[in-house]
């Protein structure tokens, strides 16, 4: 099931060694060729720099969720113990801040972890039952792939693109066209 708004025609280059792949990414970008996507079986260090990806802001989101959790926990306990139902526990203060620390800490962690994970899922477009575009099944196994949008390229340009990939050490270069009834 392909999404109609996305391009459907691609050239996929496959590499089998991450160091060769990483150099290929740098060289190809240097040539001014636009890389549509890049898929690897595990996180390749240095790839985001080679691709020129911006740093993720996920950790900033995590901090904000954590701060929300801490604020909520502290203010809720304060409200309960001082306003809503103040109880005298053996003459202890009504607002025992040191006692609030463990729960505040736990709520900070809980909010940060859940908020960040949910943000991660939304931003990465991951949900149970999502049908992903699989350019090549081996990209989760042993192949490092570069995907190029071939929607607006003519035959000669595609052939040139493939030649560049091969020169950069790709072990396989192929066309990949998604059809509207594409299955998983």
């Amino acid at each position, binding site marked *: 099931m392909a999404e109609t708004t996305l391009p459907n025609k691609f050239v996929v280059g496959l590499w089998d060694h991450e160091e060769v792949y990483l150099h290929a990414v740098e060289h190809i970008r240097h040539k001014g060729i636009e890389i549509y996507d890049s898929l690897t079986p595990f996180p390749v260090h240095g790839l985001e720099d080679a691709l020129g990806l911006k740093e993720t802001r996920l950790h900033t989101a995590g901090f904000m969720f954590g701060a929300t959790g801490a604020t909520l926990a502290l203010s809720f306990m304060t409200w309960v113990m001082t306003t809503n139902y103040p109880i005298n*526990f053996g003459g202890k203060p009504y607002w025992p801040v040191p006692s609030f620390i*463990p729960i505040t800490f736990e709520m900070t962690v809980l909010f940060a972890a859940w908020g960040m994970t949910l943000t991660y899922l939304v931003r990465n477009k991951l949900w149970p*039952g999502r049908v992903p575009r699989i350019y090549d099944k081996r990209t989760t196994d042993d192949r490092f792939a570069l995907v190029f949008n071939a929607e607006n390229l003519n035959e000669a340009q595609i052939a040139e693109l493939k030649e560049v990939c091969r020169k950069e050490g790709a072990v396989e270069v192929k066309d990949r066209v998604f059809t509207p009834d594409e299955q998983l």
Partner: protein
Amino acid sequence: MHAYESEFREPLINGMDKNYTKITDDLVAPTERNSPTWWIATLITGAGTLYFVFCLFWTVWFGIGTWGLNKTIGWAWDITNFVWWIGIGHAGTLISAILLLFRQRYRTGINRAAEAMTIFAVICAGMFPVFHMGRVWDAPFIFPLPNTRGPLWVNFNSPLLWDVFAISTYFSVSVLFWYSGLMPDFATIRDRSKGKLRRWIYNILAFGWQGTAKQWQRFESLALVLAGLSTPLVLSVHTIVSFDFATSVIPGWHTTIFPPYFVAGAIFSGFAMVETLMLITRKVFKLEDYITINHIESMNKIIVLTGSIVGIAYITEMIIAWYSGYLYEQFAFYNRALGKYFWAYAWMMGCNVISPQLYWFKSMRRNVYVTFILSIFVNIGMWFERFVIIVTSLADDFLVSSWAYFSPTWVDWGIYVGSLSLFLFLFLLFARFFPVIAIAEVKSIFRTSSEVAKAERAKAEGATHGGFILRGAFNKD
């Protein structure tokens, strides 16, 4: 590009036939074959789990009078088991979070199974305090829920309430950490599977993972922050569990040494349980190349360290009891070692403090059989530690007339053995359908820490350094 790693460091992936394809094949294989042994083990532990449910039902139906508790000893096996299971759970987070922050590459072989173990252990642990309530249907009110009685809120001063927050947070964050790491590996299984149904199921489990550069970038950011959050979290959980005792006024319980002592004990027992399970798993699934003797030795080093910390804590408690000049405290510790529960104390000391000292010898640390037996000893010892702390402190309290002895009933036994069954049952399901070793993470250390990579580097260096090659130096086992 890759961080340099000394040639003297042993490889973490053995075998000269390894490459990315082979790693995928080896690590996915256990989910692709059907074994009669697995069925037998699953049916036995499944039956044990049903017995667990039966004993819990019995407890709820007739009340906790069916347990061996009495007026003096109000906490016994239930809380012992609770603390024991929580402690076991700690190794998973320790391995995945703390070892990630410290960049210990050996974690990649064991983190997945250890995290699964954490989750199952916390499930088992949670059962005990919940069913100890007696009226289980009131359990939701341990959370500060709005109600029509005032509203009457929970007591935010109580460590028991902190425990509720600590353990529920710990459980849910562990699940997130574990599952976010599983998604890419489920995608690996999906992309290999032949059957349509199998592909569909593993795609649902994988949340449609693709492995694009941006996904991996966010993945790494998430893993790092979750590790950073889980590290203080795991320490806080057992600290708060120890507060349950430390903030009370019972001699033998109200000691300030409890938090670090409990945390060390938790790591100690958790690593032991990881070893027990992983030694069996690596044998059955033929994963010796991925969980190497080097991994086992690293874990044994942590065991001898934490075991010795626990030993120092036992001795410190004794000395401080004597030094305090407080009669009841002195009696509690004298009675603990030499009173009617001396046998439990002897088990605790023997298993936790004395037996791990064998690991000062390299040959013992690297011996699979010794490790397996000692890992079970450590778990027995850690169970007795909790029993000693809880029961001996309560049994002989301030009034001689109320002194008592705890004897477990068949329900106590049933729930304890049943919880072990539940734990193993869940682990078996996990081992059959989930990748027990983090595939993507093992691949990510392949170029630095595998035997193949080291041999390649040694060859390259050998060429420039007059043919001095270290090949074979790490193949003694």
